[in-house]
């Protein structure tokens, strides 16, 4: 229980993959045009993270260290393929709107980074928990960014329209860079202010 809370806190707050570690930027900007897409991408990546961390941790004593990266990539790619098939079969609308970014979960740096930095050194149980924490942290960040972009860009939230239209540029390419850049600056400002206060 304690380790669960610890890994959730680490994933969502202290080592948030998007805002603190600044990893996995491509899906972060590309799929966050609506909240549904953001949550769908976040949860897909979470499932891949949990299972790849679990399996890499189980196999950590069998994979020779020289070819470990290739080994990790095969494990990750297998789970991504499974997720891709499940999404295609059960949530075809989400599958179509995420498009090419589902196979690209393979090269999401968060997953490889956790495999290398955590799962290859810790027990299977702790690694799966770490995957859960990091995945939920990623999901929270995507939800936040996509909520801002959907509200400003299409004047709706979760598909429910409260305005007839929005500022279109926020759901297009520049809006993604702009929202993410502003949020990062905001978090930097808060943490700098905090460390200045504590001195």
């Amino acid at each position, binding site marked *: 229980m304690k380790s669960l809370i610890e890994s959730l806190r680490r994933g969502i707050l202290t080592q948030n993959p998007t805002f603190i570690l*600044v*990893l*996995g*930027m*491509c899906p972060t*900007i*590309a799929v966050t045009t609506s909240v549904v897409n953001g949550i769908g991408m976040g949860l897909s990546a979470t499932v891949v993270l949990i299972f790849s961390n679990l399996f890499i941790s189980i196999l950590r004593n069998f994979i020779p260290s020289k070819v470990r*990266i*290739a080994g990790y*990539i*095969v494990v990750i*790619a*297998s789970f*991504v*393929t499974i997720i*891709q*098939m499940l999404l295609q079969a059960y949530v075809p609308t989400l599958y179509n709107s995420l498009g*090419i970014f589902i*196979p*690209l979960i*393979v*090269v*999401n*740096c968060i997953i*490889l980074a956790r495999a290398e930095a955590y799962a290859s050194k810790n027990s299977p149980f702790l690694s799966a928990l770490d995957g859960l924490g990091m995945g939920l942290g990623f999901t929270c960040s995507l939800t936040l960014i996509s909520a801002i972009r959907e509200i400003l860009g299409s004047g709706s939230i979760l598909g429910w329209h409260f305005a007839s239209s929005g500022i279109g*540029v926020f759901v*297009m*390419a*520049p*809006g*993604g*860079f*702009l929202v*993410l*850049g*502003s949020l*990062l*600056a*905001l978090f*930097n*400002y808060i943490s*700098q202010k905090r460390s200045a206060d504590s001195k």
Partner: protein
Amino acid sequence: MKLIAELFSISLGAILVENFVLVRFMGICPFLGVSKKVDTAVGMGLAVTFVMGLSTLMTHLVQRYVLEALGLEYLQTIVFILIIAALVQFVEMFLQKSVPALYASLGIYLPLITTNCAVLGVAIYAADTSIYTVFTAVWYGVSAGLGFLLAIVLLAGIRERLETSDYPKAMEGFPVALISAALLALAFMGFSGFNI
């Protein structure tokens, strides 16, 4: 003549209209990570272009003559990422042995390319055998790489100038790079809808 028009349209699309970084959001990590100096940005861009050309050739051939011939399309992701990883490793060893000068200048960027999602992305797009032939697929791969080169060099130029300018401390590093990228993306939106 028809071929030349098709090649031109592929290049125009991949470099400007559907720029892989600024319009399709692929390869953002190296785009932000290796764009502090123009020299290194050029090195990274050239390395990516080279690997993209080679990997689209390999993956298109594998897709056409192995995966589709055997009905194994669902293995695409696993097979492609392995091809790219092996290819990057091979290119690295080859350059180290035979062109050490080029290896020294590209050295550190080569292993990073495996996790550049633009490389896998362009391989997946170019694997559509109903649209591309082997030749046009490679052409598409090289054009996508040139698009990446253009975007990263532009951003590096902006960031070099920003180094001496005065902006809020909280914007340092990634935030200011992202805002600059947003402005670049805004400029590239001017190309959208271009068609031949």
